[in-house]
């Protein structure tokens, strides 16, 4: 089992809808969690970080962390065409290591 699991998608949503992206991780003691966005041919860029259980909102983006279930999600409200990209879930502190571990990414397609 991979340490950080994401559904590869693609997830297709209409413009203006809510996109929900999910991620699970294997190590209960993991401490910090990040969502990165990667456009085709570009490098990953940080969207949000989350360290505490619960929700964290930043503009149209909400990250949710549930440590008991070892589950992270990213909600994108009012989806725009420019949100079409691959979203990477990243977890720090897997197996005692501070190496950031990436999921394989979920491809999001926002269509008109």
């Amino acid at each position, binding site marked *: 089992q991979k340490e950080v699991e*994401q559904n590869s998608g693609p997830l297709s949503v209409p413009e203006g809808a809510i996109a929900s992206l999910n991620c699970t991780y294997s190590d209960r003691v993991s401490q910090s969690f990040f969502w990165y966005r990667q456009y085709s041919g570009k490098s*990953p*860029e940080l969207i949000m970080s989350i360290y505490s259980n619960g929700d964290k909102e930043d503009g149209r983006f909400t990250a949710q962390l549930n440590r008991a279930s070892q589950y992270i999600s990213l909600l994108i409200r009012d989806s725009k065409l420019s949100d079409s990209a691959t979203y*990477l879930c990243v977890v720090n*502190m897997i197996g005692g290591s501070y*190496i950031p571990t*990436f999921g394989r990414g979920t491809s999001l397609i926002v269509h008109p």
Partner: protein
Amino acid sequence: GAGVSQSPRYKVAKRGQDVALRCDPISGHVSLFWYQQALGQGPEFLTYFQNEAQLDKSGLPSDRFFAERPEGSVSTLKIQRTQQEDSAVYLCASSPGQGNTIYFGEGSWLTVV
């Protein structure tokens, strides 16, 4: 500079050739990571430096891969006797310290023919 800088951006190497990929991290960032990203996959960890010390090289796929950061700033990833399966994007990232956000360079696209 303001961000992580990588060079070359694109490299085509003949099979068997040696290549060197350079990473210039954000000034003052202690941690430096190298990742390999194949098409359609997430970045896979290769190696990690804290200052000049290489603390983890468990992700290097073979002894043909070697990385260094002699002065705790610029890092070089060297691949000897390249093979076709080495074709990938090599991403460098830096961070102020353990557990912090990591910031990526634009990547070095390696194609081995």
